[in-house]
């Protein structure tokens, strides 16, 4: 049976400004769901509300039909935030061990990065750290992974590699991704949502993104 994540009735406000208003999103195991939207449209806020960080006025999250209070609990959802998350004085090997990730998986996809394992997070370049954190989130044991701007700081070669890994990993878990490199997002996504006026709108064709003011032309 494949895992299904559904979240609806999500309302988040900051200083009386409603950022996310009654949003709905669904993600199934075996698919990559893209979430696009203009700056400040509430994409990250929506992901964080489902994950369980930050206050939300209302939310309903269901995993395989069962209600859960927060995504992070019971290894349902893990999340790559926009910023680096590994504590700066922690070695990459320690981080991988804490997440109980099979080192063989890391070696398979990043054998040229093994020299980074014994370095501390603050000794890596921004792109290297981003790629390692992406691998940790993708390979850790959770039913779903949220990726908030996973390609920021990655070179085109590393981005292509990340997309290949994501396509392999989606067989084991559902992936929800948001990034402003929208061509990569539309290319890898099986389904697309666009945040518009605080709500999520399902997008079937990239031309609809023009209507929602996300792009000017295809």
């Amino acid at each position, binding site marked *: 049976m494949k895992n299904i994540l559904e979240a609806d009735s999500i309302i988040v406000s900051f200083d009386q400004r409603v950022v996310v208003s009654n949003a709905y999103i669904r993600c199934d195991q075996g698919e990559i769901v893209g979430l696009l939207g203009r700056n400040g449209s509430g994409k990250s806020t929506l992901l964080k509300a489902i994950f369980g960080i930050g206050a939300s006025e209302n939310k309903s999250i269901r995993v395989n039909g069962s209600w859960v209070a927060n995504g992070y609990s019971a290894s349902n959802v893990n*999340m790559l935030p926009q910023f680096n998350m590994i504590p700066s004085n922690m070695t990459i090997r320690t981080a991988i061990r804490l997440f109980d990730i099979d080192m063989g998986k890391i070696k398979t996809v990043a054998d040229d990065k093994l020299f980074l394992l014994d370095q501390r997070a603050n000794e890596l370049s921004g792109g290297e750290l981003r790629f390692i954190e992406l691998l940790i989130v993708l390979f850790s044991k959770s039913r779903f992974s949220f990726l908030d701007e996973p390609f920021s700081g990655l070179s085109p070669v590393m981005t292509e590699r990340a997309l290949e890994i994501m396509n392999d990993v989606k067989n084991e878990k559902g992936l929800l991704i948001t990034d402003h490199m929208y061509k990569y997002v539309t290319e890898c996504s099986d389904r697309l949502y666009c945040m518009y006026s605080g709500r999520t709108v399902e997008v079937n064709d990239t031309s609809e993104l023009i209507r929602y003011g996300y792009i000017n032309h295809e």
Partner: protein
Amino acid sequence: MKFLHAYRTIALPANIVSVIAWIAAKDAESSSEIFTLFWMKVFTEIVLIGFIHLFNKHVIFFYMNLGIGERQLYKSIVAIDLAIFVVVIAIVYWIA
């Protein structure tokens, strides 16, 4: 194991405060002075947790990805630090 790693986030400043309190406890003449040191420690603990909450959000994300919620993270850090503090201050007071 995960909680000990979380504790390392504040270990340095927390232990500096503890060492100052332990030195002061050596010369304490009554148990009320020990209680004053304890409340001083609790106050600095709140300041350190506030620092993580406001300026170290990335650490919270890291531990949430390990299944440890924000409140659970704070509680475990405080519990470990206060446990070490109380045990050592009791030993110091008893020896002195």
